[in-house]
């Protein structure tokens, strides 16, 4: 995720150019990597890796993990790279995950949905997250503890079974605050069951009366048979 205003870059992973002219506000990926440590370097487009403007050495990529690298401004408006481990665990049926990351040169903020703060006191470079009912919400970002809107409002369409990651980027001072979104799909769960009948008219298998009938039949046969047999023996 590229959140440094006005600064397109080339991205190098372990010395190899992976992204060409990657623009602010864009999201690249997924890139599948073996578990391990990676060196990341950002250069101005076309410039050699030796004159990188930003580097991270030995960024850990855990096996089976899902990591987003954010190139962004810190609270003091200095460019940096922050790795975020994405929560890609399954969400319950009917739910969606909302993750908000503060990657802007801005003070502490609250995130509101429908005017109610849902995440409070979020600071750079941290995230807040929660699983919420899937659907649309109107969200905005305000300075912590105030009603002063810093970003938004915007309609968020939180699709069931996905994680929507919203990055606050840019700079408050530079009046370039904005949001960048990344969506991770495939986190849905199936419902717990499909209850679809309580009448019993379509029941297969046998009822209690079947066992009664069978028992009576067997008893009659046995009783009658024994009686017949003893009667004949008696007459002899």
């Amino acid at each position, binding site marked *: 995720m590229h959140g440094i205003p006005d600064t397109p870059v080339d991205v190098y992973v*372990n010395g*190899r150019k*992976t*992204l060409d002219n*990657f623009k602010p*506000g*864009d*999201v*690249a*990926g*997924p*890139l*599948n*990597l*073996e*578990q391990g440590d990676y060196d990341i370097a950002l250069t101005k487009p076309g410039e050699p890796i030796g004159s990188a403007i930003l580097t991270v050495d030995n960024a850990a990529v855990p096996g089976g993990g899902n990591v987003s690298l954010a190139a962004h401004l810190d609270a003091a408006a200095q460019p940096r790279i922050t790795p975020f481990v994405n929560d890609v665990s399954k969400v*319950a*049926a*009917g739910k969606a995950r909302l993750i908000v990351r503060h990657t802007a040169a801005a003070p502490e903020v609250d995130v509101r949905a429908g005017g109610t703060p849902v995440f409070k006191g979020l600071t750079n470079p941290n995230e807040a997250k929660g699983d919420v009912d899937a659907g649309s919400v109107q969200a905005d970002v305000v300075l912590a503890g105030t009603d002063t809107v810093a970003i938004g409002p*915007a*309609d*968020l*369409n939180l699709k*069931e079974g*996905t994680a929507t990651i919203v990055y606050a980027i840019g700079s408050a001072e530079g009046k370039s605050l904005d949001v*960048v*979104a*990344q*969506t991770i799909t*495939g986190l849905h*769960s*199936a*419902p*717990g*069951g*499909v*209850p*679809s*009948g*309580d*009448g*019993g*008219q*379509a*029941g*297969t298998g046998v009822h209690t009366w079947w066992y009664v009938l*069978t028992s*009576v*039949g*067997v*008893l*009659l*046969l*046995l*009783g*009658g*048979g024994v*009686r*017949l047999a003893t*009667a004949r023996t008696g007459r002899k």
Partner: protein
Amino acid sequence: MTVRDRGALAAVAAGVAALTVATLVACGSQPAEDVGADEAANLATATPTPSARAAEGQSVPVTAGKLPAGAKIVPPVRLVIPGIDVTATVNAVGINERTNEFEVPPSVDQIGWYRYGPGLETDAGSVVIAGHVDSAKQGRGAFFRLRELDQGDTVTGTGSDGGERQYRVVAREEYAKTKIPLGRYFARDGKPRLTLITCGGPFDAKARKYRDNIVVTAVPA
């Protein structure tokens, strides 16, 4: 022949009759066997995801980080299954918050489409529609005869866009509710398919519950 003998003979005859009836009932109560289970399972096989590779040679897709917009989904609004005389209104339904189960429409002559999964427009995954087999209060439901469907039967779904889409039944399966692989039937990947679900199997009169689910899988015809 003595009266006693006659009584005994009558008892034997009644016993034979009772057992004959019981046998006939037992045979008639056997559920139809599953058909097409393998085909249904194959449809669900996900398209393979690329395995972890080194960075070399991979092209990395770049997208504008725009807020996600609502996807264009075509909800089914009507379902017609000529083979079992079904013409039913389809409602968009979700999850019962209390039970975490599929919210089948309470009215038994209406059926429910799982609105979180794909709609009729989909080119991947399972469009799920469930309906009541019956109800204690309302009697027979729209899917009362679902278990009579067989391979080759046709199903027509009408979307909210007015378009009709034809499907062909490839499988009918019965699973104990405790064992049904719901993840497969609610998958959003694999081949496009229509999954119809209702209840069936032995009925527990005390719990007012059927033991099983009947699942019919159909593919675009």
